[in-house]
């Protein structure tokens, strides 16, 4: 299986006043298509930083990140944005829906940004995903009227609607109770199986970790351990 994400000697240094913070120091990692990977580790170990780099929201200080073989360090903001839109999906800890929009519109949003779908195509795609996350009935509601679990399901639908190669989720269950969190991970896992989408997510929760096919443990900005189930 080909690596959809390849991380080679990546360092990330944040300037902090006059000093700097070394968030990542020398990470090498390769994630294959269809993997269901979790990044684990104590707070401040660099999970979010790593996910941001894979998510093309940031570029490494040193080293290179390859998305489907394409190096990102030299890409412009425009190209990175394009990459995010076409190949990546995002699920956030705080759901990050656009409050004024309905459930349907939130899910439709990335399709509109892509700008190449007819109304009927969009309708079909959004409805299919809403059915999958079981929110068809709520499609006309505002996201502010939904519960946390429902919101995160909307977010999952939004992340998947463009049919991305990789879905990134930074602590997707942190703001949910454990039962709901578990159902969200289960949903993600199902989609991973049926759609063959690569999932990379971070978590603190050992319960959640157990669901992952591969656990990458970070410590102080480098990979401390790795295990596959």
């Amino acid at each position, binding site marked *: 299986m080909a690596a959809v994400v390849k991380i080679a000697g990546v360092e990330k240094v944040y300037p902090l006043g006059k000093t700097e913070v070394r968030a990542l120091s020398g990470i090498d990692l390769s994630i294959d298509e269809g993997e269901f990977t979790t990044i684990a580790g104590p707070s401040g170990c660099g999970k979010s930083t790593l996910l941001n780099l894979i998510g093309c*929201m*940031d570029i490494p200080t040193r080293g290179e990140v390859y998305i489907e073989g394409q190096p990102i360090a030299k890409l412009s*903001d425009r190209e990175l*944005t394009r990459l995010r839109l076409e190949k990546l999906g995002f699920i956030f800890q705080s759901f*990050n829906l656009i409050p004024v*929009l309905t459930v349907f519109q939130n899910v439709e949003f990335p399709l509109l940004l892509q700008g190449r779908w007819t*109304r009927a195509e969009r309708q079909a795609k959004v409805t299919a995903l809403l059915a999958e996350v079981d929110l068809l009935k709520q499609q006309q509601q505002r996201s502010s009227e939904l519960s946390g679990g429902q919101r995160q399901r909307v977010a999952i639908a939004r992340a998947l609607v463009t049919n991305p190669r990789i879905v990134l989720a930074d602590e997707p269950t942190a703001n949910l109770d454990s039962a709901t969190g578990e159902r969200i991970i289960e949903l993600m896992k199902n989609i991973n199986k049926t759609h063959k989408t690569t999932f990379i997510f971070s978590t603190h929760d050992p319960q959640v970790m157990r669901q992952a096919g591969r656990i990458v443990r970070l410590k102080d900005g480098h990979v401390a351990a790795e295990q596959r189930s």
Partner: protein
Amino acid sequence: MSSNIAQFRLIFAVALRNLWLDRLRTIIIGGLIGTGAFLAVIGLSLLLDVQASMRASITQSIAGDLQIYSAGAKDKLALFGGSGFMGRADIGSLPDFAPYRDAVLGHPNVAAFVPMGLDMAVLSRGNELDDAIDALRVALKAGDESIITGRVDQIKFQLDQVKLELAARRLLSSDQVEIDQQERDLARALAPEFFSQGKAIDEEHLQFLETKIAPLSGEKLPTYLQYIGTDIAAYRANFPKFKVIEGAALEPGQRGIMLSRKVREELLKNGVAKLFDKLHKRLVKRGGTISGDEENQRFATDLSKQYQQILSYLDRPNAEELSAKLTARGIKDDSPDLVQRLSHQVSAFLTVDDKNFSERYHWFYEHIAPKIKLYEVLPGQTITVRNYTRSGYIKTLPLKVHGIYNFDGLEDSDLAGVLNIMDLVSFRELYGQMTDASRKELEAMRAQVGMRDVKSEDAEAALFGDGGLASAAPSEAASETVGDVSSSNQALIVKPTLADFFDPAEVQNGLALNAAVRLKDPSQQNRTEAELRDKLDQGGYKVNIVDWQQASGIVGQFVNIVGGTLVFALSVIFLVAFVIINNSIIVGTLNRTREIGTMRAIGAQRSFIVTLFLAETGITGMLGAFSGAVAATAIILMAGRKGIPAANDVVTFIFSGPRLYPVIHWQVVTSVPLLITLFATLASIYAARHAAKVQPADATQEKE
């Protein structure tokens, strides 16, 4: 395609939501933009209205579309005033306008070229006693006993009034010796034997009255007349606003003057009538009151003191009749002496208040006005004007008043009414055009009176020194051109004798100071002006060419001044709007970092964010600007129905009438809000770009 529309709808929906969430900010910015649009629509509409009305009244009364005058001018041409009060502007001259005319008329868009000259002179005025003495002189020549008796009685009646005046003056004067002398003179005139010669009253007696007594009866101040001298045929053919309202029009080839109605009303009308008119306008037409209005009170007080202005015009029978009429209407007085009784009665009659004003006003015009001389000058009479010419001497010229005129639509405007119109030949004479012949003549006269130069202050003194509408001091007896050194000052006074008619060919060339150019297509004014400038320049003619707005002086600049003020006010408003819009977007961005970051993270380009913010100001601007424009339109419609009253004379001139009826200019109503919206949208580009700098990683910022 449909996806682009959907994307636009998405932006619209998000923008609307944000505007709604930030209602206060939206209202402030929208209100600011709306105010700007409101002011801009109203201001521009009125400006267009005023410009159109001013254009019509100025170009069709005096100015023409363009004015040409010498490049050697020291002052700017200001047809409706502008150069200092009482000042004579020096606008140079065109020694022979014919080549200028031929050059200008060669342009295909020029309809007419009308030579003109703008100047001012002093109108000599005598008092009523002077007039009565003159009338007696005429009667003596004719020799009709009964008329002579009537004239003598009129003089005696006026002498009675002078006696009363002199008694009053004694109380105020510090020079009792002078008053003694004056009373002795008066006593001689009042003595029964003074007029006892009847038919044989000699010139010595008349001159005694003229030199010693007439001056006691109050001098009228000499007054300035501003005038335009022009080729009357060309003028009347090209200036349709010129309307003769009394007498006859000045015809081509005739010498004389047309007095402006306003000039006659203001300067040459009986003082009582003038005050009655003024109060009538302020009380009846404008609905004011005397009590409680300081200015009206002042006019009313003035009026009550003006009985002399009525009495001095009456002879004894008329005075008796008026006294009886006043008694009959309840204004009684028991002084046995007629003059005393009537002055008390008239004083009482002229004491007006809010209750009796209207009735007294009408009574005055019905019963008193016919008995007195309402105007100092009537059409058909001849006035004498004198001017300190450019050649350094004083010229006196009699001018027949052919009629009284008005400019259509500018009847009430003082500014438009200051100009009188005379023929170009008389104008040149008063201007003091130097021909070779006249230069020689003047040299000879100077040699004769032993003068080398004339000091200007002496000339000024001589200009005002001696009054007399019809009274000519004996030493100045008009005959052929003569030089004269008056005893009190050392100025040369020249009295040319001119025929009443001239060959109209004389005004087809020769001296003019300026010229009006009328265009066939006024919308091409700017182009034609530039082309004429080039043409005259190439022909070697050194001239100033100005458009009607500049030519009419300060008032003509009004449109530009108001336009400038409007632009300035709008600039301030939009500067404030600009700052507030940018500021509020930048501050708002802080609260919306997560939302912007999320959009960026899931694939929205920076341009999408920029568009979103521009849409927000665009929508706010659109709502505000169109509301403002709609409100302005409503106000204009309302104002258009009733008209905006002109608050004062300058505004009357600007409105070209007592009221301005604004109309809706659709191009203004539609384009102003569009432009303002565009401006507001563009003005927010900086802030929108700032917002688009939010990083995708900021989506995870914990806030909300």
